[in-house]
C-alpha cells in the first residue's frame, strides 16, 4: 500500500480569476487540497473549474488569468514563487500532464518516437541513442507490442487508445512525481479505456507517485481513485474517500449520484438535480 501521508502537493486557498470587461469572473474560488502518493479524482460538471485547477498547478493558465493562493507547495518548490525558468524544468519532468484527446495533443508532424525522446533529451540531456532505447522500453511498458514499428509512426497512423498510451509513455519517461490527467479516457472506447486505466494504475503504484485524475464520470472516478474531490461552481464542496462516495453528505454530490442511470439500481425516473443558491455561499 502506498504511503499516502507523504504529501507531494499542497494547495491552500487557491483562486483563479479572469478579468473581463464586465468585471472579474472567479473560475476557481478558495480551493484547498493535498495530494499524496495516491490517486485523487476531481469531479465536476463542465464549467466547475476542475480543468482550470489542474492547469493552475502547472502554471499553464492563460496569461490574463490571475492565480492567488495562500500556499502552493510542490515537494520542495513553492509554485507561487517559482520563476518561469524554474517552471519549465518542472513541467514535463516533475509534474506531467495527460490531456483528453491524443489527436490534438500530439504533434502531427513529428514521429511518435521523436516526441517521446524529446522529453529526456531536453530535460536530462540524454544522448539520442540513450533516448531511443529508453523510449522503446517505455513504449513496451505501456503494452505496445511492436515498439520498433510504433517509434517511427506519425500520430495520425495510430488509434485513439494507442495515442493515449503514447501520451502516457511520454509523460512517464521523465519519471515525474505528480501526474495531472485531464479527462484522459473520455475520448476512448470502453474496452480501450480499461487498458489505458490499468496501465496508469500500475505505473502510479509501481513508481509510488501521485495522480490527479480530472473527470466528469462519477462511476469511473469512484472505481479508479482513492479519494474524490467534488467541485461545484469553482468551489470544493466535498472531499471524500472514493469507497465512501455512496455516503456523501453534500446535497450536490447526492444529486449527482441520483441523477446517474445505473445497471445495478434501475429506477423509472431519474432524479433531476435541484441547484441550491446556498451552495454558492462561503
Amino acid at each position, binding site marked *: 500500500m502506498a504511503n499516502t501521508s507523504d504529501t507531494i502537493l499542497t494547495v491552500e486557498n487557491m483562486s483563479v480569476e479572469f478579468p473581463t470587461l464586465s468585471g472579474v469572473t472567479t473560475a476557481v474560488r478558495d480551493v484547498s487540497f493535498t495530494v499524496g502518493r495516491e490517486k485523487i479524482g476531481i469531479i465536476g*460538471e463542465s464549467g466547475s473549474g476542475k480543468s482550470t485547477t489542474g492547469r493552475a498547478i502547472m502554471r499553464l493558465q492563460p496569461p490574463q488569468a490571475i492565480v492567488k493562493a495562500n500556499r502552493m507547495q510542490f515537494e520542495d518548490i513553492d509554485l507561487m514563487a517559482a520563476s518561469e525558468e524554474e517552471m519549465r524544468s518542472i513541467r514535463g519532468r516533475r509534474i506531467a500532464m495527460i490531456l483528453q484527446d491524443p489527436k490534438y495533443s500530439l504533434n502531427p508532424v513529428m514521429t511518435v518516437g521523436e516526441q517521446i525522446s524529446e522529453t529526456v533529451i531536453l530535460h536530462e540531456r540524454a544522448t539520442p541513442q540513450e533516448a531511443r532505447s529508453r523510449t522503446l522500453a517505455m513504449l513496451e511498458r505501456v503494452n505496445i507490442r511492436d515498439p520498433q514499428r510504433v517509434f517511427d509512426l506519425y500520430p495520425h497512423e495510430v488509434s485513439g487508445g494507442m495515442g493515449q498510451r503514447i501520451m502516457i509513455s511520454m509523460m512517464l519517461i521523465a519519471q515525474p512525481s505528480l501526474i495531472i490527467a485531464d479527462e484522459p479516457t473520455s475520448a476512448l472506447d470502453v474496452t480501450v479505456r480499461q487498458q489505458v486505466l490499468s496501465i496508469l494504475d500500475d505505473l502510479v503504484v509501481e513508481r509510488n507517485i501521485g495522480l490527479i485524475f480530472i473527470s466528469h464520470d462519477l*462511476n469511473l472516478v469512484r*472505481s*479508479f481513485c482513492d479519494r474524490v474531490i467534488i467541485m461545484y461552481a469553482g468551489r470544493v464542496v466535498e472531499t471524500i474517500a472514493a469507497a465512501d462516495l455512496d455516503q456523501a453528505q453534500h446535497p450536490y454530490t447526492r444529486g*449527482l449520484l441520483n441523477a446517474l442511470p445505473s*445497471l445495478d439500481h*434501475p429506477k423509472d425516473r*431519474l432524479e433531476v438535480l435541484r441547484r441550491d443558491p446556498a451552495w454558492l455561499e462561503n
Partner: protein
Amino acid sequence: MSMIKAHHLAVSYGHGETALKVVKDVSFEVEKGETFGLVGESGCGKSTILGALAGRNKQWTGTIEIDGETIGQKRTRAQLAKQQLVFQDPFGSIHPRHTIGRTLLEPLEIHGKDRRQERIEKVLTDVGLPLNFRYRYPHQLSGGQRQRVAIARALILEPKILLLDEPTSALDVSIQAEILNLLKDLRQREQLTYILVSHDLAVVAHLCDRVAIMQSGGFVEVATRQQLLENTVEHPYTRILMDGSRGYVSEKRNSRREALPA
C-alpha cells in the same frame, strides 16, 4: 404491429473497389412504442444503421419496412417525415446564426405544413422550453436547452419514430437525467418508437426494452432490458461493455473479488 422491420440490412460507403461494407447483414424488428438500443464501440456501424433508416445513407441493400410500408432507396416527403434524427452534439447540429424559431420553421417549410406558428409553440411547450425561446440564438442556450431544441426540431413534423444518436453523451450527468426523463415522457405522450444509439449500457438499460450489441458491423447479441439488469447476458463482449459502464475494473481487484466467497 412492427413499426420498423429491417431484413438482411447491409450498408456500405464508397464505390467500386474501395467500397467499405460498414453494416453487414443485420435483421431486427421494433414494435410500436418500443425502444430499441444499438450499442457498440466507435466504428461498429451503429450510427450507419440510423443513417440508413433515416434516409441519409442510400447505399443499402436488404429490405426496410417502416410503419407497414416497404421503403425504397428513394423516398417521398411523407415517408421521410415519419422518422427524425436527434444528434449527439447540440453545439454542432443547430445552425448558429438562425434563431430557434427559424430552425424549427425550416422542416415545416420543406414539408409544406400549415399552422406553422401554432406548431412551433406546441413543440416548444412539449419539450419544456418557454415560448420566448423562439427568438433566441443557439449560443444563448445551455447544452441541455439546445438538446431540447434538437428534440423539438425532430418532433415538429409529428414523426412516428425518433432516431436518437447518442443524445446525451455530450451532456453533464444532471442534464442527461433531464433529457432522459423528457424522452421517457414524450415516448408515452406521443406514442413514439425510438431507436437509441449509445455507448453507455446504463443509459440504454434505462430507456430501452431491447438492445442489440454490435461489433464490426454485425449484432453479437440482442438482449432484453431484463437480461441487462439481472446480468444474464450471454456474450462476453456484452459483459465487457457492462463492466465499462460501471467504471474501472482493476484486474487485481477482480481476481481478489473472485477469490472471495460470494
